[in-house]
């Protein structure tokens, strides 16, 4: 089977998408307009006259006029047109630039335009080189000769075909009139200079993984950044890893059996019912987990509730309320962000606010400034500060508090199930779908509403005045 390029070529070659090509083609067509395009003249060679020759300065003037850009930009644009192969120079044919003077250029035929789908094939190049060999009677340029030898080796199986095609194409070319023959030769030569650039020239069509100039090859920057990175000693990081594994190993459902039984294995969902989000009495394992770190406590919503009860007793609930409000801002919708930011500012941050949080002056300044343009992470600094406050102080008091000790005592420790195979069968048959998530969500929403109403900001002044009035 041949490796054919006419088939959808998914892997063999990488063609970058060149979005500019369609636009350039449209522009090339516009240039042809008899009224508003570029005026061509004639080129006189020895005996033949070839029409449709344009001068560099005409092209540049037209481009500058059409695109409304400066002549320098137009010159650069023109050079790109030449480099891509839409226009080719007649005089210095190897130098693919557009000069803003009387140097002569001609348009390239659409067959030889750069296209997305068709890549300049090696076999076509070989045929071209063979034709050139015939025309030049064996004297090729050194780089062409090198390519020729290389292709003769690698395309050897097709070489007969290449020779045959080359001779036939050469003969067919002779059927055209002399002027056209000259033009055709120029066209082909220009095409192959663009697509197989001579040694030590840089082609604009350089793209794909084999390109010569790689803009990403900035190794120096990479090494500099690597040096600047801070490195942790492995003794330290391994110590942390060991600590983590010893703490959590009894809680990992793969390493330790979960009590009472793993629902996936025994089809008995007691484990899940005991560990729902808003269960009254949590399990012992769950409560133990809260003591591992403050992060665990806050992440488990049941733990957060317990913590809230403790804080209510201590009258220091504003920190946690602020933290929760900041979380809501982070995860909420973009539309509600500015409204939420306003509320948070009024409730927690403004001087004399009902639930004013005690953060240091610098963080407060930064946050207030950021709130002028609210975005998702504007409260990040304040939130971290509050988190650390709670962690370093309140958390340890919580662990020693009667609230926690109470819940520890009350926590359930279910007995592990021991099902016989017959019972397992029965379990499997008695599987029920469980509570619909929508119902759980609705319950949570109701509870949230109740909690919000109950824990409305405690206005100290109003409280005091009430106490005064009572007196």
């Amino acid at each position, binding site marked *: 089977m041949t490796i054919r390029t006419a088939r959808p070529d998914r892997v063999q070659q990488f063609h970058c998408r060149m979005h500019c090509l369609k636009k350039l083609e449209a522009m090339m067509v516009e240039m042809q307009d008899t009224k508003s395009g570029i005026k061509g003249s004639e080129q006189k060679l020895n005996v033949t006259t070839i029409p*449709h020759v344009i001068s560099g300065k005409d092209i540049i003037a037209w481009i500058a006029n059409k695109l409304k850009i400066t002549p320098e930009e137009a010159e650069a644009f023109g050079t790109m047109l030449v480099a891509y192969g839409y226009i080719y120079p007649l005089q210095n044919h190897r130098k693919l630039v557009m000069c803003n003077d009387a140097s002569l250029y001609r348009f390239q035929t659409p067959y030889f335009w750069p296209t997305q789908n068709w890549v300049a094939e090696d*076999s076509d190049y070989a045929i071209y080189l063979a034709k050139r*060999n015939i025309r030049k009677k064996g004297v090729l340029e050194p780089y062409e000769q090198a390519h020729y*030898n290389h292709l003769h080796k690698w395309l050897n199986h097709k070489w007969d075909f290449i020779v*045959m095609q080359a001779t036939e194409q050469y003969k067919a070319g002779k059927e055209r009139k002399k*002027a056209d023959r000259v033009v*055709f030769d120029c*066209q082909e030569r220009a095409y192959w200079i663009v697509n197989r650039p001579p040694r030590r020239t840089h082609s604009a069509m350089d793209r794909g993984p084999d390109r010569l100039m790689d803009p990403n090859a900035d190794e120096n920057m990479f090494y500099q950044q690597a040096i600047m990175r801070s490195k942790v000693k492995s003794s330290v990081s391994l110590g942390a890893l060991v600590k983590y594994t010893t703490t959590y190993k009894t809680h990992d459902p793969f390493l330790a059996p979960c009590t009472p039984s793993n629902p996936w294995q025994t089809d008995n969902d007691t484990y899940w019912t005991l560990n729902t989000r808003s269960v009254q009495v949590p399990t012992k394992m769950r409560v133990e987990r809260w003591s591992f770190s403050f992060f665990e406590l806050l992440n488990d919503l049941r733990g957060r509730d317990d913590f809230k009860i403790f804080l209510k007793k201590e009258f220091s609930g504003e920190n946690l309320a602020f933290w929760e409000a900041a979380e809501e801002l982070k995860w909420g919708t973009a539309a509600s962000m500015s409204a939420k930011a306003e509320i948070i500012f009024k409730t927690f941050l403004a001087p004399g606010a009902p639930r004013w949080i005690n953060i240091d002056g610098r963080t407060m300044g930064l946050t207030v400034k950021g709130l002028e343009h609210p975005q998702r992470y504007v409260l990040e600094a304040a939130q971290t500060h509050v988190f650390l406050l709670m962690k370093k102080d309140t958390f340890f008091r919580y662990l020693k508090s009667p609230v926690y000790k109470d819940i520890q005592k009350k926590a359930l420790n279910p007995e592990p199930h021991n099902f016989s195979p017959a019972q397992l069968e029965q379990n499997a048959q008695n599987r029920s779908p469980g509570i619909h998530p929508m119902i759980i969500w609705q319950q949570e929403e109701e509870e949230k509403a109740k909690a919000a109403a109950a824990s409305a900001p405690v206005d100290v002044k109003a409280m005091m005045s009430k106490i005064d009035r009572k007196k």
Partner: protein
Amino acid sequence: MGKDECKTMLDALNKVTACYRHLVIALGSTSDSQNLREELKKTRKKAQELAVANRTKLTSLLKDKSISKDDRAEYERLWVLFSSSMELLEVDMKRSLEIGQDFPLKVPTRHLIQTGMTGSTTTVAARAMSVQNMKYEADSNIDTTDLRELRSEISQVSQMMEEMEMKVQVAPWAVEAKQEAGAELKSNMSVGNSSVGVISICEEDCGTEPITSLSGPDFYCAECT
């Protein structure tokens, strides 16, 4: 003999492919015209006829189990020639479809690229069709109707090539070329029109050593007209 027939037919296909390429290169330029589109169509049809003929001939030859090893190697070489021709033809056909669509002829203002080529391609087409003069009889909306046909022809050709791949097990890389580097220089360049049946390239006269160990009859025959 089967082999000679094959060779003549392959030569014809080769010639038609070369001429087709010349014609496609002229598409979209100032030498594009109604006539060119018709020439393309005719050349294409001829190419397809030759392709089908070649394919049937070569497949039957290759399927024949009783041929000698040398013969088989020779046929494989011919097969590679044939499939390379077909690949070239397919690419050119697809490109002519694209360019033909981009440069329609039946629009009020034609914008053909002023490439400097102004002559007609009649002689090239005549060479392909191996006639003295081309006759043009197409109607005026050739560009649109032709493109429709072209699409179906392209799919036909693709199908044919896939079938070829499936049915004939020839490893192209195993074929060794008979021409050494620079072989095209030694050919006898005859400029005049040559008719289809005869190949005018004389390689063996000059004693070019084939670089393979194949000792079968050589591809290029020594007669020229």
